[in-house]
């Protein structure tokens, strides 16, 4: 039991160390628009979408990840792989964004 607690705190420390280096990039979702629409990031960064609309949105990569963005709430995604990701809102596919992730 004690060793598990010790292990957990080690993990916690590691997480803090990573978080300190990585960036959190904010994308506003307002009146059915992602701003900025295009984001440059690196592996380990986190995207935080802040949904200011009273509508449910998502950030969805077709055949890939999906982040739910409930009305007036935010959602997060940790970027784990490099690449260029075009995403849309599942419910309002006119909403478009792109994240370019460098290694």
């Amino acid at each position: 039991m004690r060793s598990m607690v010790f292990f957990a705190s080690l993990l916690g420390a590691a997480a803090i160390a990573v978080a300190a280096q990585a960036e959190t990039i904010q994308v506003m979702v307002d009146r059915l628009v992602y701003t900025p629409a295009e984001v440059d990031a690196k592996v380990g960064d986190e995207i935080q979408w802040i949904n200011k609309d009273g509508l449910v949105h998502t950030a969805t990569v077709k055949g890939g990840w999906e982040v739910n963005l409930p009305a007036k709430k935010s959602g997060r995604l940790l970027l784990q792989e490099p690449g260029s990701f075009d995403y849309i809102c599942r419910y309002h596919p006119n909403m478009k964004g792109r994240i370019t992730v460098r290694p």
Partner: protein
Amino acid sequence: MTIRLKTAATVIALLFAAGGAPAADKPTDQQIAHIAYTAGVIDIEAAKQAIATSKNPTIVEFAESMVRDHEAVNKQALDLVKKLNVTPEDNDTSKTLSKEAEAKRQELGKLTGAEFDKAYIDHEIAYHKQVNSAVETQLIPAAQNAELKSLLETGLKLFQGHQQHAERVAAELK
């Protein structure tokens, strides 16, 4: 189709009614709030009918989107009228919309299967066109309160998306 076009003309005529000159009879914010809310309720009711009737997953998914979005917008509209302390005011445009919706509901109620699906989605295209046109050319220009105007503008963008969505679904049915 003729009936539908007549319907749109009726609503616009009502918005312009009395006095003759369009600018002379703009709806008040209380009336605008009532019209917008009523238009939302109508689409939610139609969607619920579709969810209960249709067996086509594309139609049901579309209808679920309508419920989700129009309920969200109507909630914002209610929050806004509460905040502004205004009372939505019933008016001829709202009454006409409701009356036509009831007639449509009965008409759709007689249909099932692919016939229902086609009639529902075609009406959704026409209805969103009609409402979008009224919101864009009548309600937004007439709205006095900035927050109400802003909500209508967001609503318009959203409902234009619904119209496109309905058009895609209709094309898929063919």
